[in-house]
């Protein structure tokens, strides 16, 4: 059974159709890259996977059950901007996933883990920071980091919550080419090493084909001004990368 299952999904704003009749099955451990012209509804689709927007019609299932009505720790997100919190240090940003996510009455009341749980969380956060190459910057604030470092932090923070699905909306779109290449290496490594299923929106085709197991292109069948928004985008292409990339087997690429 697939991890994410999207069936007959429509999204309309007022009388403008953005997405029409999207059908998609995403396997566990897949890395799906979502491409398409600007304004075709990629972000809208991601927002629906995140429960930030509600579909006009259709069903999205996660693990065979309809997705919850609001965002939750089962689905993590990395945006192009505003992913990390400016008032927390690098370490504080990563710890926040445990501070907010851990159960227990004290934590629910104060939004903070204490004692042994905090020490364990700190250790795990430092491991993650080391994995994304930010071990030396643990005590800095995000405004003291470069754009690439901020996105590495955003990845670490999202992964700390151990989401089933990681959603990324043009996460590396604002980075310089050299820094982007570095972070691609990191992204590939994280996907191989962790139990990750990823859906990433990107404008960069080499990035899509370089990282993903599957590239999906949204496109409107017709996009004339005279159509008045009657046609939404559909899945125009659904390309499996060949030879297949297998999660956890970097040599297989």
């Amino acid at each position, binding site marked *: 059974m697939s991890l994410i299952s999207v069936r007959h999904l429509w999204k309309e704003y007022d009388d403008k159709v953005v997405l029409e009749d999207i059908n998609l099955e995403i396997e566990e451990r897949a890395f799906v890259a979502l491409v398409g012209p600007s304004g075709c509804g990629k972000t809208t689709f991601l927002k629906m996977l995140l429960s930030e927007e509600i579909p006009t019609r259709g069903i999205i299932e996660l693990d065979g059950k309809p997705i919850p009505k609001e965002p939750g720790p089962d689905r993590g*997100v990395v945006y192009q901007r505003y992913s990390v919190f*400016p008032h927390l240090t690098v370490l504080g940003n990563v710890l926040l996933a445990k501070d907010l996510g*851990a159960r227990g009455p004290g934590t629910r009341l*104060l*939004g903070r883990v204490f004692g042994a749980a905090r020490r364990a969380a700190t250790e795990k956060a430092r491991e993650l920071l080391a994995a994304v190459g930010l071990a030396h910057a643990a005590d800095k604030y995000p405004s003291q980091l470069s754009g690439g470092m901020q996105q590495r932090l955003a990845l670490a923070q999202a992964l700390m919550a151990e989401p089933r699905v990681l959603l990324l909306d043009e996460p590396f779109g604002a980075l310089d080419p050299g820094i982007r290449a570095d972070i691609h290496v990191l992204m590939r490594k994280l996907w191989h090493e962790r139990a990750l299923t990823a859906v990433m929106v990107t404008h960069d085709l080499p990035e899509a084909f370089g990282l993903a197991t599957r590239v999906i292109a949204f496109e409107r069948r017709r996009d004339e001004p005279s159509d008045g928004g009657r046609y939404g985008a559909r899945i125009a292409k659904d390309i499996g990368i060949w030879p297949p990339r297998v999660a956890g087997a970097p040599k297989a690429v």
Partner: protein
Amino acid sequence: MRLVNRLPAPGWARVLALLPFVAVLVLYLIASAMRLADNPADKLLPSFATIGDAIVRMAFTVDIRTGTIPLWSDTIASLGRLFAGLGIATLIGAVLGIAIGVLPYLRALLGQFVAVVSMVPPLAILPILFITMGLGEASKIALIAIGIAPLLIRDIALRVTDMPPQQFVKAQTLGASSWTLVLRVVLPQILPRLIDSVRLQIGPAWLFLISAEAIASESGLGYRIFLVRRYLAMDVILPYVAWITLLAFVMEIALVALQRRAFPWFAAARTAQ
């Protein structure tokens, strides 16, 4: 070079900053000397010596009738009211402002109401406060709180809704409840902005305080100024005004310093957005 590109050297900038103050003092000295030369009994622009005498009398001499030093007892009375009023308003502004900012239901319920209430001129309801709460401390503190709280509520609510919506979604994907979202994400980012808002309300707070003291009080800086007005005692009024200005200015500096020390991330984050 264009005027917009000409920068004063750092030392020169400091001199320039002092210049208007010196100019006002010099102008005062000249005008005062001219009037006193005309009429030595003139009370409107007293000489520095007369003002000095008044300062010694008000700030360093125990008043035999009350057994206190007037300037200090006035200052303590006024600051007590001011801090109480500002404190209550800040608390209400933070709690209600954040609640209205994050909870759509509360925004629907109270948004318009607070907007209307903030249009009520506070001084117009001062008589109502005197009637309902008496002429004591409560009505003066209430005037300051009522005069400032609605503006703070609106300002804070606006700043909360101005936060990037991604942060709210992001916190939820990390497991936040409504409460922990407020506690760990909204509140810490709003506090330094609250300090900014309160800074801008120091002036109005003094305005409400002095108005209330002028109308009904037996102590306080405003009370004193309006009391000695009857004798045209400019030698007392002028140092009192300068003292009030200094107090307000020190409060401003203290808040800026607090913001910088308590929220070291804020200055950079503000320019980054």
